[in-house]
């Protein structure tokens, strides 16, 4: 096997080892169906492996990995035309109704389901920002991945934090 392919394999393997679980979480934010989610994760890994043939080191491996993964996942959801009309921007999301059973909303699983529902409702650009924020990336890194300016990212993060607080205030996950 030639050395370029070996390098590509090695770079991919290192990225997959470090970011594999984040890629699985990312797929969860784009695809609800477990079977399709598994396919999406595999598509992301294949695209990532392929992408390392052209990786020039001008950004970090983490930035590169998330960029490729979000592009694949966004293409995946954009193919489903009927869902596109249902997506909302951060400012378009209404406050949620009060939960019928506040006790049930305190469980981690329930909070996670609500968080995923919220993520999957968002338009791709806001969805990317929210998931990268949840991965604990800063505004500059999120900007580098999404192509938004750091200022635009900061504004979105500010709005997302307010939205999350309203949505999860009564059902604090921990």
């Amino acid at each position, binding site marked *: 096997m030639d050395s370029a392919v070996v390098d590509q394999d090695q770079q991919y393997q290192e990225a*997959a080892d470090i970011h594999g679980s984040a890629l699985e979480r990312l797929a969860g934010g784009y695809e609800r169906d477990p079977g399709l989610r*598994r396919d999406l994760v595999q598509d992301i890994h294949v695209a990532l492996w392929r992408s390392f043939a052209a990786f020039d080191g001008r950004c970090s491996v983490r930035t590169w990995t998330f960029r490729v993964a979000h592009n694949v996942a966004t293409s995946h959801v954009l193919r489903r035309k009927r869902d596109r009309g249902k997506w909302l921007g951060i400012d378009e999301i209404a406050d949620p109704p009060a939960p019928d059973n506040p006790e049930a909303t305190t469980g981690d699983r329930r909070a996670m389901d609500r*968080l995923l529902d919220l993520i999957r409702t968002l338009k791709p650009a806001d969805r990317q920002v929210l998931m990268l924020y*949840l991965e604990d990336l800063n505004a500059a890194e999120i900007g580098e991945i999404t192509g938004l300016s750091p200022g635009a990212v900061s504004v979105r993060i500010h709005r997302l934090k307010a939205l999350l607080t309203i949505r999860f205030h009564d059902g604090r996950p921990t």
Partner: protein
Amino acid sequence: MTDNDTTTDLKKLWRDQPEEMPPMTLELIHARGFQSRVRQRNLIEYVACGFVVCIFSAYVILLSDPILKIASALVVLGTLIVACQLHRRASARTAPATDALGFHRAELVRQHDALRSAWFWYLAPFAPGMLLFLGRLALGYPQMPLVYRLITPALTLAYGVVWVWINGRALRRLQAEIDDLDALRQ
């Protein structure tokens, strides 16, 4: 509770999600990447087949020379045969969840066999129609300038040479991949 408390908790909740999928192996990645390349190649081939069918169907309708009409119809028929054979012999397949290595090797061998016999199922179906068409153009219209009569056969010949070269390179690459896999399995 502050915004920061809530989002810190949510970040932790997000990152603590349990992993549900087994890690992807490089072999599975290679197998899926290969299938995706095959799918892409075949898509280009089907589009090219559609283009040829449209052009030569138009010739069947528009040309007045009966020999050129027959030749064009044969090219259309040959193209349809090629598209069917491509689907039958060299279409992409979905990798099963288990034995990725075995599946990948079998697919590499399948594509290798398809390429090795491509002269028979990819070139031969075109031959009757194209030869008749080019022969008629070259010999049946002496009043046309020689350069016009030779340009299509020359382009066809050039395509054939490039095809043989690309095919040979693809065969060598597939064989190298099969050898790598065999070395890995031993």
